[in-house]
């Protein structure tokens, strides 16, 4: 028995794409709210404490975090150029920049794992530790999901799922990755600078 795959027309695709994009942006906004909740909890704890970090607690190592931040920000730039490659039908550019993004994202996770194992504080050790591990852990989980997301869209692209005209999955992956990047801008400031 022959199977028929329905292929929407360009007009139908554009209409559905707009709705999907809006839905995805609402998802990112809801994720912002989740991070916002934790960030305001952290700020509340910080301002309620006379000394911050609490006595006996060291701040995480600033310069390692600065290098790790640049690794993540760099991945945002490579993801942007991967997407530009797809927009201009340059598959090779897309593949290499996406691979670079995946590698940089994984390096960031490695840096974070190193930091966790060398920090003289624990999740239950202090309010600072609880906030730090909760927020950076939540962010690290997002990066991990982002890496999985990128590997998935890379495989889909190599299998021919996306084209120059129809690539909503890639747009979503790019926006998600940029979102993960800019959340780190706030977290880096809060935990390492402020």
């Amino acid at each position: 028995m022959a199977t028929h795959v329905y292929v929407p027309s360009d007009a139908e695709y554009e209409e559905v794409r707009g709705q999907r994009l809006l839905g995805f942006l609402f998802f990112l906004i809801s994720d912002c709210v989740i991070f916002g909740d934790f960030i305001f909890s952290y700020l509340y704890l910080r301002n309620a404490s006379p000394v911050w970090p609490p006595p006996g607690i060291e701040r995480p190592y600033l310069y390692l975090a600065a290098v790790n931040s640049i690794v993540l920000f760099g991945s945002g730039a490579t993801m942007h150029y991967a997407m530009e490659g797809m927009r201009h039908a340059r598959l090779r550019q897309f593949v290499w920049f996406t691979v670079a993004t995946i590698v940089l994202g994984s390096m960031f996770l490695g840096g974070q794992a190193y930091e966790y194992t060398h920090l003289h504080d624990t999740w239950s050790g202090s309010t600072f530790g609880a906030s730090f591990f909760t927020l950076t852990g939540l962010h690290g989980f997002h990066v991990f999901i982002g890496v999985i997301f990128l590997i998935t869209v890379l495989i889909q692209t190599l299998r021919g799922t996306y084209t120059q005209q129809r690539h909503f999955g890639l747009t979503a992956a790019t926006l998600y990755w940029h979102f993960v990047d800019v959340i780190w801008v706030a977290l880096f400031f809060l935990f390492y600078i402020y």
Partner: protein
Amino acid sequence: MELNLLLKIIALVGAVVVGVVALVALRAEWKKTALEDHVTKIMMVLLALGCAEVILVAFGVWGRT
């Protein structure tokens, strides 16, 4: 070379490169008008801001070690 200095140099060079790339990308996106292009512009501005943060840290203006 001292580890702190090495990390500062890596962070500074990386931040300048990524910051410039983000601003160039922002300039290229500037005239595009689709919804995702506007979101990308915001993201690029914030990315450049993140690089500025790291540059200030590398110069010792911001952050306590």
